[in-house]
């Protein structure tokens, strides 16, 4: 069952990658745009499709219009502090069924900005606000980019890996 599923998702991924290569070749991200730290694990290695951050809206719209991935299920962010970047992960589904198509994109930590998908998927609004609230990722074109969990007055982005460590257990350090 899970084997079937992973086979299916690998096939979906390869199809989508081939289609993107044919129609949006400039959107695919070259590997190695972020350096890997010496000795550490390479967290950037992935078999998923990695696209240019600034092209994410074009890619997403292409997936919807041409490949029928009309359901944007999930947007989330990962802080890869060691690599100096944030990774954004998007999951798309086809309503006819099948596993999710995972699209990843990477942003420099100094300037985490990329186009918003909210104008095309209104349901993305809360998820983008969450990524903004907790990681400080700026979605350009989002109609209402405010904090969603923390109060508006709060400073800092608590899910970043370099957010101040807290708790009694660090007091003795």
């Amino acid at each position, binding site marked *: 069952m899970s084997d079937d599923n992973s086979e299916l998702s690998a096939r979906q991924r390869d199809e989508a990658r081939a289609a993107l290569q044919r129609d949006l070749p400039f959107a695919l991200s070259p590997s190695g745009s972020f350096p890997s730290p010496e000795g550490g694990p390479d967290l950037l290695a992935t078999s998923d499709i990695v696209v240019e951050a600034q092209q994410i809206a074009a890619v997403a719209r292409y997936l919807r219009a041409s490949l029928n991935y009309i359901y944007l299920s999930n947007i989330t962010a990962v802080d890869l*502090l060691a690599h100096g970047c944030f990774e954004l992960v998007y999951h798309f589904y086809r309503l006819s069924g099948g596993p999710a198509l995972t699209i990843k994109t990477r942003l420099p930590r100094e300037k985490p900005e990329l186009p918003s998908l909210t104008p095309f998927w209104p349901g993305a609004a809360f998820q983008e606000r969450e990524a903004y609230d907790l990681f400080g990722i700026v979605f350009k074109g989002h109609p209402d980019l405010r904090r969603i969990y923390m109060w508006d*007055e709060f400073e800092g982005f608590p899910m970043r890996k370099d957010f101040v460590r807290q*708790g009694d257990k660090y*007091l003795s350090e």
Partner: protein
Amino acid sequence: MPSDDAVQSDLEQQGVFFSTLNRFYNWGRRSSVWPMAFGLACCAIEMMATGLSRYDLARFGAELFRASPRQADLMIVAGTVTKKMVPQVVRLYNQMPEPRYVISMGACATSGGPFRDGYNVVRGIDLYIPVDVYVPGCPPRPEALLHALMTLQSQIDRQNLKQVRWYGKKARPQSQDFPVPSYGPHGLEIDGKLVDPVGSLPLISSYSSPMEGEQRRDQIEHPELVRVFPDMERELREETSASYAEALEGEDQHVRR
């Protein structure tokens, strides 16, 4: 000389009831505690179970969960109190008429519980309102909540009408409104002072010892520790511009007290 209680029960057997005003008041008070229907997280599920048929809180006269603080005299803080929720909890407490009691149910409400080291959960609701009974557990079983109610009832039995913390001629702090914290850049603030800052310990101690009716503020919980609130912005600025190696080195310096 037989004790008052012995005389009392002797007379009661003959159908004569004597009471002091105090005893009568406490009896009435303890026999119908009306809790507020107010749940915050997983502990509330146990609170609901306690109120329903299997555990039957009604046996203790406390089954009437009210949806309005104006009609309730017991607040069961059942669950994780996030910082964003605290102003509402304090406001609800302020809206309850005296006499009013608080049971802090579960590890979260008592101390922050599993989320104590997080950035978003207060380290104990007793930083903001006085708590009468604490219930340990994650979540406490319904029996534990029943026990907490019985403990509260025995506390009510011991109340002295003249000294109770919300009546009397002297200004009693607990009949005033408790300060509602406001949201600050680094945590909740009361009168412009950080109460439960992200990244260090609470600065203002709890409103403890409600039996004595006192209200303590501005005391440091752990006076032996010097605590300085870290400048998160500066750290962010420095670290985002630093290279990876520097960031690793600086790892140890993130923690500032």
